[in-house]
């Protein structure tokens, strides 16, 4: 009996801190968030009793002045901007990651550091950098106006374009790194086997290269799409209120807009969408056979 008691104490000592951590910093805040979302909003924006669905009604657009689609638009815009940015990040990162693996071994770490280096700078500073590049009167803005891509004197910022550029720039390293890891482990003989078995270069790519890099691609997609969906700083600065995303909607309810229950409800919906996205991705991964190596 003593032996068993001792063992269970050891067990508690080992997993106890972890459980405590999860309860304190995940379970309790989540419960807190959920309960706030179902409370009423007092005149100062703080949550009060009684329990109600008021926040969710507001989120769906039912306000004092009737129904407005603004929040739904914001949600849709978040999905669209994050998805589009993720797609661009994939298209840009894939060749970059492959190119790095073809370089001599001593150059590769340097090239990876060059990819990662910008992300060590503060996000706000990087966004302000893009603001300066895209402002009216800058060479880039003038060039865009000259070929008719933007109105003269308007600049490229603030715009949805600037937000997507900011997102792509911000999340590029998170896609390049897992893809690089996948490319570095690539079994080139499989590619040769496909070529040998009558596959032209394009079909050999889809038969032998893509499946092998899929785990990296999926990992990168999770690392990019999820935070991009909830991104707050970039749409705030580069979109200047025109391209707000759910992150901005949430942030506003806890600051100027002061409506905690509405903010909590929006945050909950955001989490639900994220989980839904991960679920879809996991299903896709299973069908494509990359699931085992994907850590979800």
């Amino acid at each position: 009996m003593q032996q068993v008691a001792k063992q269970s104490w050891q067990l508690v000592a080992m997993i106890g801190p972890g459980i405590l951590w999860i309860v304190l910093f995940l379970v309790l805040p989540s419960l807190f968030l959920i309960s706030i979302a179902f409370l009423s909003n007092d005149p100062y924006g703080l949550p009060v009793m009684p329990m109600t669905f008021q926040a969710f009604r507001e989120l769906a657009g039912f306000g004092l002045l009737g129904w407005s689609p603004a929040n739904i638009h914001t949600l849709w815009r978040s999905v669209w901007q994050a998805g589009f940015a993720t797609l661009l990040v994939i298209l840009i990162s894939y060749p970059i990651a492959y190119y790095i693996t073809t370089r001599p071994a001593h150059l590769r770490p340097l090239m990876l550091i060059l990819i990662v280096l910008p992300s060590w700078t503060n996000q706000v500073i990087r966004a302000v950098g893009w603001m300066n590049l895209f402002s009216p009167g800058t060479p880039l803005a003038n060039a865009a106006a000259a070929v008719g891509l933007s109105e003269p004197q308007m600049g490229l910022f603030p715009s949805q374009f600037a937000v997507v550029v900011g997102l792509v720039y911000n999340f590029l390293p998170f896609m390049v790194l897992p893809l690089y890891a996948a490319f570095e482990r690539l079994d080139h003989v499989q590619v040769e086997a496909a070529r040998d078995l009558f596959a032209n270069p394009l079909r050999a790519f889809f038969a032998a290269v893509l499946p092998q890099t899929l785990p990296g691609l999926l990992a990168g997609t999770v690392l990019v799409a999820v935070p991009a969906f909830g991104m707050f700083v970039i749409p705030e600065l580069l979109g200047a209120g025109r391209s707000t995303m759910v992150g901005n909607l949430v942030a506003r309810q806890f600051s100027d807009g002061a409506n905690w229950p509405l903010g909590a409800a929006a945050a909950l919906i955001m989490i639900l969408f994220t989980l839904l996205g991960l679920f879809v991705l996991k299903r896709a991964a299973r069908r494509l056979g990359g699931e085992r190596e994907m850590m979800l």
Partner: protein
Amino acid sequence: MPPLIANGVRYASAIAVRDLCRTFPGGVVALDGVDLDIQAGEFFTLLGPSGCGKTTLLRILAGLEYADGGSVEIGGKSLEGVPPHRRSVNTVFQSYALFPNRNVRENIGFGLQMQGFKKPVINERVEAMAELTRVHDLLERRPEQLSGGQKQRVALARALVNEPDVLLLDEPLSALDAGLRAQLQVELQRLQRRLGMTFVFVTHDQQEAMVMSHRMAILHEGKVQQVGTPQAIYEKPATRFIARFMGHQNVFQVTARGSDEISADFGCLNGSFADGSYVLLRQEALELRAGVSHGNNQLQAKVDECLYRGSVAEYRLICGNARLTASCHNRGQGLFAPGEAVTIEVAPEAVAMLSG
């Protein structure tokens, strides 16, 4: 396309390799003017130590590697500039290179699928080939669920199902354990004889090469050293390098040469010998007798070591100024003890002259 291989392939192609050269970036010379003629329907082996260029030659035939100079023709058609997917040549890779995300059926059918065959045709031919290579019970498995030997068979089926003009095999048995390897050597040989397809097999294992090949080429430092049947190459190696590589241990420089005799460190032999500055005594063709006798082509020796291997006993002998090895078949005649004096009987067939 007629139904699958049952009684021989529709056609087999001859291969002509002319003055083929390949130097890798960095200056390593892989092929240095290789000329080869491989006949249609032949089991031809490229044999040599690692780094001799045999795999590079195979890869050039497959189109996976470029040649710097020279030409390759298969079935009389030049392969210059033909990409791998347009060559009727398929390869069994050393690492098998099965596609891990496809099951066995999809792996074997891959080449047919890429050639645009319809599903029913692919299924029929995949199943027939799976039967032939004895993997028909594994069709729905994934490569990770297969043993080494099974993977090997699937890789073979995946290449053969396309009925290529030439099948290339890059050390396909080297990852298998000895027993399985011997079994697959026999199977592979039977399959080739039955199909009549041209096989080009790469290996560094001379036993394996001899068991399976019709003819073989010895490659060394990017050059073809000798081409011939296994028997010709084993019994009459052209050079010291080939003799050593084929497993011969008794190679000596000729020290003196008369009209019908040669001398080396081990003593003197009488007979009419071919030209050559080195002499090879095949260890398994030497006969040992107890005691000392001084006849024609008899050498006196002392047993230094005896290595008992069951079917043979291998003796290390001291003979004149030389050390000789003799392998004696164990017919129950008993063993010579270290220190014992013996007489080596050298039959004319046991001697081969080497040029360099």
